């Protein structure tokens, strides 16, 4: 959803008449999609990578297994920030995806492998500031890496 930039008076939030959910299924915050335009673009990029991946004999296998893209989406669901620069995605031989958030001199680069392993590299001016392995479910560390790139940590 396009962020409201009106400087007019705040409107009272109208509550829908159906305000309770009897569902016991759990999934990432659906409301994030509406407030975070970067997320929708990111998901489309991942989908395109998965659909377009090819095996180039002699160069490398750039097909993306569904396990890799699922892990990347779980990573994205841990980033609860509405306004972000669009991340970029690229495939790496062996079925991995590199996801990079760039803000000025800083990059947070996540390399996601089909095994579920996630390596995060924090770069400043192209130089490695730190590297670490993390779990895609680790919301605090995933989000902190992005906040670092944004200069907010």
């Amino acid at each position, binding site marked *: 959803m396009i962020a409201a930039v009106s400087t007019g008076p705040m409107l009272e939030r109208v509550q*829908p*008449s*159906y*305000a*309770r*959910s*009897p*569902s*016991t*299924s*759990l*999934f*990432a*915050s*659906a*409301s994030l*999609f*509406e407030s975070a335009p970067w997320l*929708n673009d990111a*998901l*489309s990029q991942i*989908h395109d990578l*998965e*659909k377009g991946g090819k095996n180039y004999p002699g160069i490398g296998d750039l097909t993306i297994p*569904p396990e890799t*893209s*699922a*892990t*990347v*989406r*779980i990573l*994205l*669901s841990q980033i609860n920030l509405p306004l972000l620069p669009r991340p970029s995605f690229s495939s790496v031989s062996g079925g991995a995806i590199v996801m990079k958030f760039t803000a000025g001199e800083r990059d947070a680069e996540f390399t996601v492998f089909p095994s579920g392993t996630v390596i995060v590299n924090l770069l400043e001016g192209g130089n490695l500031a730190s590297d670490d392995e993390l779990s895609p479910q680790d919301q605090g560390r995933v989000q902190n890496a992005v906040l670092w790139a944004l200069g907010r940590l």
Partner: protein
Amino acid sequence: MENSHRIADFENPPVVETVLGVFFSPLHGYGALHQGVFWHRVRTRYPRYELMSPIGELEVRLGPQGLQSFQGLQPFPIRSLLIDESNAQLVQLQANGFLRNWRKVPGVPGYIHYDVMRPSFERDWIEFLNFLGDERLASPEVFEAQVTYINQFVRGFEWETYDDFRRILTEWIPFHRSDIISNLKLMSFHEAYQLKDGSGRLELVAQPAIRQDGKEILQLTITAAGKPRSNSTEDLMAWLDSGHAAVVGTFVEATSQEAHKIWGRK
């Protein structure tokens, strides 16, 4: 097996959870521990439990002695989930509500049709009423019954881009075209309609989400809700029957024949 309630039947339906529920005025004298006493009665059917915050408005006040009352009822309102061995069927219980769910669980085959779920709900509801009687608690003053079907359309299966929803959903859902806009990038909506027979309302909510298994989905929730004619179980079940017909009928009307083929309509 009686299947008079089957309006449409699919081999591989997109439904992931169904809920039959009833909400009532908070029961006077009913406390959180009663949920445990009720669980004891049905524990052979539902051997596991989870505790969650209740559905609906939740008001917790901070006072001089810490957390204080929730609408004058209980200091800590809770919802108990009483879960069967398969993890696919459960009862949800809170001070003003009783719900019975079926949910899709990996490794547990089959979708539980309404004509199978209905008698299970009725059996558990009657058990709950008997329990209230045995505990000398008042019978529930029903204010709303609900039927909810939660469907998930998975990217890479039913759809590749949001534009594909132009062929998955019928004209029932308006899609706009103009010289100014091009591809559909995202879709979410919440619509509420009055049921023609005046028995309540029907709501559709579409929301994109990332599922726990990492799949990208559009979730379509269809709910019929309304007040049964009386507090009797007979009237409650009659309302659930009409609510179920409204939900399934709407799903069939709102989704295309092309989509029905994907799901293997019989």
